[in-house]
């Protein structure tokens, strides 16, 4: 499913094959390399074994490491996430998959009252080095209970780092960083970036990934595209949409957008956002999570708290407008931050 695509990119020097991996494959490669390095790393979750993860994040791990280290669990998220916590407290480094972010409702107590608080409650004496992975996002008509992003909810609650990669190379590096981190890390992958053969995908969800293990720093945003006219702050699948819009508008209207890929929500790289906004004077926040009380408001607040004068025009937001994600394609596409809505948001911002 999540096959490694090894091709020779056009223009590459003869003999230098570019390793092109899907994001799913990049994630599982990161986990595999850490499992090779550190016997304390185990993988737990529903369908992480023979299936390889419903969205491919654990593909090939069972074959490589066997059922002692890659364990399919019962549909008992409270039990197996809590098990991950106890194992982490005893020095293991579990990677635990919650199949959909939407499912946090059946196990949130273990996540926010235990995983995220034990280090604090213990005055720093107990560490919980675990990674909680989860699939997020819509765009394929999976409706209200299987399409949410919800990363803002995890980021709102203290004690867990939250990372949200947008591309294969960052996905691998952030996974390795997450496993090596001594804190609980919530690792959210959008289904639309995984490069799955059974879902429409952006071409950027299959890209070059270095073979050797490497860390992508948690808490450091990336400038995905440099530009001068406005800053688009976004993450995950919306980075792809924003880059597509930026390319289109550059060609069509001569508009030069800067696109910031946050990559981490906790810690949030406020500096990179502020320095970009300081240059462009215009800010659009694109977020596939719900609009109110979330990431887009947080970005706005951090700019306003620092210096509202950085903005030469009122900022704009493109997010899910506080409705559940509908099933019908026509309705779903109306509320997701599609390229069309992002483009309209940019126009609105530039004429303000």
């Amino acid at each position, binding site marked *: 499913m999540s096959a490694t695509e090894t091709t020779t990119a056009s223009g590459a020097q003869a003999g230098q094959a570019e390793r092109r991996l899907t994001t799913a494959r990049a994630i599982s490669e990161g986990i595999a390399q850490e499992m090779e390095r550190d016997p304390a790393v185990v993988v737990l979750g529903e369908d992480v074994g023979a299936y390889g993860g419903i969205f491919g994040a654990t593909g090939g791990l069972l074959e490589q490491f066997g059922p002692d280290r890659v364990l399919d669990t019962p549909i008992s998220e409270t039990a197996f996430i809590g098990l*991950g916590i106890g194992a982490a407290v005893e020095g293991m480094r579990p990677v635990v998959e919650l199949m959909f972010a939407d499912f946090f409702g059946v196990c949130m107590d273990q996540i926010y009252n235990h995983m995220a608080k034990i280090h604090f409650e213990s005055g720093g004496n107990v560490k919980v080095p675990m990674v909680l992975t989860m699939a997020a996002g819509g765009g394929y008509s999976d409706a209200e209970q299987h399409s949410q992003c919800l990363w803002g909810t995890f980021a709102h609650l203290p004690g867990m780092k939250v990372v949200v990669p947008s591309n294969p190379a960052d996905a691998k590096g952030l996974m390795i960083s997450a496993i090596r981190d001594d804190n609980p890390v919530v690792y959210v992958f959008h289904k639309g970036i995984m490069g799955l053969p059974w879902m429409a995908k952006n071409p950027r969800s299959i890209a070059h990934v270095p073979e050797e293990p490497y860390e992508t720093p948690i808490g450091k945003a990336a400038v995905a595209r440099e530009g001068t006219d406005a800053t688009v702050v976004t993450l995950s699948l919306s980075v792809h949409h924003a880059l597509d819009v930026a390319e289109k508008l550059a060609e069509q209207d001569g508009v030069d957008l800067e696109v910031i890929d946050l990559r981490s929500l906790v810690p949030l790289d406020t500096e990179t956002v502020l320095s970009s906004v300081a240059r462009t004077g215009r800010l659009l926040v694109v977020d596939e999570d719900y609009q109110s009380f979330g990431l887009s408001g947080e970005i706005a607040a951090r700019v306003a708290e620092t210096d509202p004068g950085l903005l030469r025009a009122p900022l704009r937001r493109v997010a899910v407008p506080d409705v559940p994600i509908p099933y019908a394609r026509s309705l779903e596409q109306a509320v997701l931050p599609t390229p069309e809505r992002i483009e309209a948001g940019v126009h609105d911002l530039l004429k303000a």
Partner: protein
Amino acid sequence: MDSKTRLDLYRVMVICRTYEEAILREYHADKKPAFDIGAGLVPGEMHLSAGQEPVAAGVCAHLRPGDAVTATHRPHHVAIAHGVDLDKMTAEIFGREGGLGRGRGGHMHLFDPNVHFSCSGIIAEGLPPALGQAFAFKRGEGDRVAVAVTGEGAANQGAFHESLNLAALWKLPVIFVVEDNDWAISVPRDVSTAIGSNADRAAAYGMPGQRIADNDVDAIYTVAGDAVARARAGEGPTLLEIHTLRLWGHFEGDPQAYRPELADVPGRDPIPAYEQRLTEAGVLNPGMAAEIKDEASARVEKAIAFAKSSPVPAPETALQYVFA
């Protein structure tokens, strides 16, 4: 059972009770005349374990260094019986920098990694982490076990049932201990639970289950010994339900108006009963009992003094320890 074991059980029960009596005294000392839950040297909710000492003593007697215990919102007796650092535990209850959690956690959130002890204020949610500790132990050297203590009210929580299934499925070295003190705050078990014994629920998960009546520390010791041995031998989890006694309120300040048998409660106190039984058996005499109580009192007062002498956490450190 030999005399030494029984005296040890008595000694543990006595220090647990002595401790709770001291905390009771300190908790209420500066909440007079009007009770204000947030006031005083020990603020906040306070769930004391008087009456439940036989559970802690009988179960923890079988544990060794390296074994783990997770307890509940009513954790002191289990913590003491498992050998949690008494000075630091007390300082934590007093919210001091010298506490187990540097005053961040308080009495429902005690973590002593040296003895692998933790507790949680959320009903039944201490069970899943115990599974994880057992999971780690099973993969490591030795025959370490994890004990997960919870209450009879917790046996109707999803976390309880998920944990029993997963522990049995993976044959984890866990002992589930249900403290049935008859009351989920004000709700009696016949209002909350469809069956008479939660131990019967073990059969649904393919593990042995046993209910122990009468808050009997000798019986608890014997049955818990079998369960711990079973876990150490790699035979998987056991579910024990122990009918115990909540001698005092759910929390301090609970008027217990809902409790019809209140007048009979002091007569069911397990410690005088055990004292009498040991005396009749020639294991204990009044002089020994007095000595054991004096020792307990001295140890507890030392812990209280340690707590009071420990500094209050500086407000400017409130943001520390969110991340490692």
